[in-house]
C-alpha cells in the first residue's frame, strides 16, 4: 500500500517535471556525461539562460497555436 502510494507520487512528480520541462537541465547533464564526457557541464543558471536565449533567436521554438 505504502509503496504503491509512493510509486504513484513519484510518477506524478516525474510527469509534472517532464511536462513543464523542469527536468531539462538534468536531461542535458545526463546527455553531456554520456555522449561527450570531456565537455564541460554548464551550471543550471547558465543552462537555463542559454535555453531562453535560444527561443529569442528562433521564436518558432515552443510556439503555440490559436
Amino acid at each position, binding site marked *: 500500500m505504502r509503496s504503491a502510494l509512493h510509486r504513484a507520487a513519484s510518477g506524478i512528480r516525474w510527469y509534472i517535471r517532464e511536462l513543464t520541462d523542469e527536468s531539462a537541465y538534468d536531461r542535458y547533464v545526463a546527455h553531456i556525461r554520456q555522449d561527450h564526457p570531456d565537455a564541460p557541464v554548464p551550471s543550471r543558471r547558465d543552462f537555463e539562460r542559454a535555453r531562453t*536565449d535560444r527561443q529569442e533567436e528562433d521564436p*518558432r521554438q515552443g*510556439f*503555440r*497555436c490559436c
Partner: protein
Amino acid sequence: MRTAKPRTIVIWTLVALVGAAGWSVLALSRGENVSAAWMVAAALGSYAIAYRFYAKFIAHKVLKVDGTRATPAERLNNGIDFHPTDRRVLLGHHFAAIAGAGPLVGPVLAAQMGYLPGTIWIIAGVIFAGAVQDMVVLFFSTRRDGRSLGQMAREEIGPFGGAAALLAAFAIMIILLGVLALVIVNALAASPWGTFSIGMTIPIALLMGFYLRVLRPGRVTEVSLIGVALLLLALVAGRWVAESSWAGTFTLAPSTLVIWLVAYGFIASILPVWMLLAPRDYLSTFMKIGTIALLALGVVIALPTLKMDAVTDFAERGDGPVFAGSLFPFVFITIACGALSGFHALISSGTTPKMIQKETQVRMIGYGSMLMESSVAIMALVAACIIDPGLYFAMNAPAGVVGTTVESASHAVANFGYTISPADLAKAAHQVEEQSLLSRTGGAPTLAVGVSEIFSKVTGGSLRAFWYHFAIMFEALFILTALDAGTRVGRFMLQDMLGNVYRPFKNVSWKPGLIATSALVCGLWGYFLWVGVHEPLGGINQLFPIFGISNQLLAAVALAVCTTLLVKSGRLKWAWITGIPLIWDATVTLTASYQKVFSGDPRVGFFKQRSVYQDGIDAGKVLPPAKSMDDMHTVVTNSTVDGVLSAVLAVLIVVVIVDAARVCVRHVRRPALSTLSEAPYVESKIVAPAGLIPTQRERREERDAIGAAPGS
C-alpha cells in the same frame, strides 16, 4: 488470417452502440430538449472507433510506420530540442501546443446554425481530415529531421508553391492575431473586473520571470504554483476593484483597449523572452490544461440540457446575425480548430518531430492529440448551446442590430425568431456582475456564460460571477500570450523575407531591424483590430470568416504537401487519405472566398457591400446600421480591404494546389525526375510502446531492454 478475440469484439460492438445511440438521439429529436450527454456519447464513441480502426489503418497500411527506424530525436539527440521524450509527456506537450482559443471560439459562433451542424462537422472533420492531417504531417516531418511545413513545401513542391505557402502563413498569422485581439477587446470592454484581473497577469508574469532568471533558475513547477495562486487572488480582487471607487479606472472603452493591446504586443515582443513570454507561457499552459480538465468534468457531472435548436433557420437562409452566409460553406469555415486546423501543421512539423521517440507513436501523438482538441471544441459547443438562445443571440449579434438597451435587444431578438424579456437580459448580466451582456461578440463572453452555468451547477449557484470571470481570464490569458508569441513569429518571418532585400535584417538580433519589424507586425494586426472595433457592421461578423478562410487555407497547404509526399513516396493508391480532405477543404474554402468576393447579397459579398454603401454615399444617404457619413466611409474602406484580402487568399490556395498537382502528375509520368529528401534509415536502439497503454509484447520488450526509459 488473424482473428479477433471474442472479448474485443464485444467491447467494440458496445463502443459502436454508444456512439450510434448518441448520433440517433441528436439526429432524430426535434422540438424537445436533448441532454448534452448524447453529444458526449456520439463524440467519444466515434473518436474511439476512429482511433482504433482508421488511425491504425493509416499508420500501418498507408504510412507504414517503422518501429525499427530511429527518429530524429534519437539520431540527433542534443539534450535540448532534439531528445527522445516519453510518449505520455509528448502527448501533453503537443496537446498544450495545439489547443488554444481557436476550438473555444469557433464552435460558439457556429452555434447560430444550431448544435447539429457544428457537432457533425467537428466529429466527422476531425476523424477524416484534421487528425489525419496532423498525424501525416508529423510522420513526414519526422522522416525529414523535423523540417517545418514551409521547408517541406519548398523542397517537395518547389520554390513557387513554397513561397506561396510562406506568404499564406504570414497573412494568417496577422489575421489570427487581429481576430484574437478583437475577442479580448470585446470580452474586456466596460468590464472593470475582467480588465483588472487580466492587467494583473503582467506584474505576476514579470515576478515569475525574475524568480526563474535570478532566484531559482529552472524551478518551473514551484513558480507556476505561485503564479496560479496569485492569479486566483487577482481574480477575486477583481470583484473588489469593480465594487470600489477604482472601478472607473479599469472601465475602458473598446478603442482605449485597442491602444493598450497594441502597445502591450509591441513592448512584450521586444522584451527578452525570459521576462514576460516564458513565464506567461507557463501560467497559461497550467491554466489551460487545468480548466479544460475541469470543464470536461463539469460537463460530465452536470450533463446540462441543450436549449438551442438542432438546426436553426439561419442555416438555410444565411442571414444569421453572428456571421452571414448559409451552412455550406460557412459552418466549415467558422469551426476550424477542433475539426481541421492548418495551424497544427506548424506544430506537427518542427517542434514535436524532434522529440518523438518512435515512428509508431505518430498515431497517439498526432491523431490522439487532435481528438482531444476536438473534444474541447465539443465542450465549447455544449457551453454555447445550453444557454438560452435569446440570450445567445443578444450577446452575439452586432451592436448596430441589438442596440444599447435591453428593450431594443429583446426586440431585435424577437425579430430573429427567439424570445427573451428585457428583465431576463438584465438579470443575466447582473448574475455575472457585468454592466451589460448585449453584443459581447467574439465567443469568449458567451463561452464564459455557458461555463459559469455548468460550473455553478456543480458548485452551487453562488459562484456564477466568479466562474464567468474565471473563464474570461482563462481565455484572455492565452490570447495575450499568443499576441506576444505570434508577433515574434511574424517578425521572424518578416526578418527572413526582408533579409533577402537588405542583408542586415537576416541577423535576427540586429536591434533597428528587430524594432522596425516588430512595429510593422503589431501595426498590421493592430490595423485589423482597430477596424474590427470600429466596424459598424460588427467586427467579428466581418473578420471571422476571413480568419476561418485563412486557417483552412493553411490546412490546404498542409494537405497538399501531405498528398504530394504520399504520391512521391510510392503511396499513390493511398493518396486519397489526404487527397479527399484536401478536395473538401479546397471546395469549402474556395466557395467561401468566392461568395465573400462575388456574392450579390451585401451581407455576404464584400464588393456588393462596398457598392451598396458607396451608392448610399453618392446619394447622400446613411444606411443602417451605419449611423453617420463617417460610418458609411468606414464600411466602404473596410469592405474593400476585406474583399481584396479574401481574393488574395483564394489565389494563394489555388497556386499551392496547382503547383502540388503539377509535381504529382510529373511524378506519376516520370518518377525518375522527382527527388525525395528523406533522412536515411538508421536502426533504432530505443524500446518504447506505441500507444498509451503498452501491449503485453511491448511490456516484454521493455523488460528485456537494458536501460529502460526514466520513470517506468
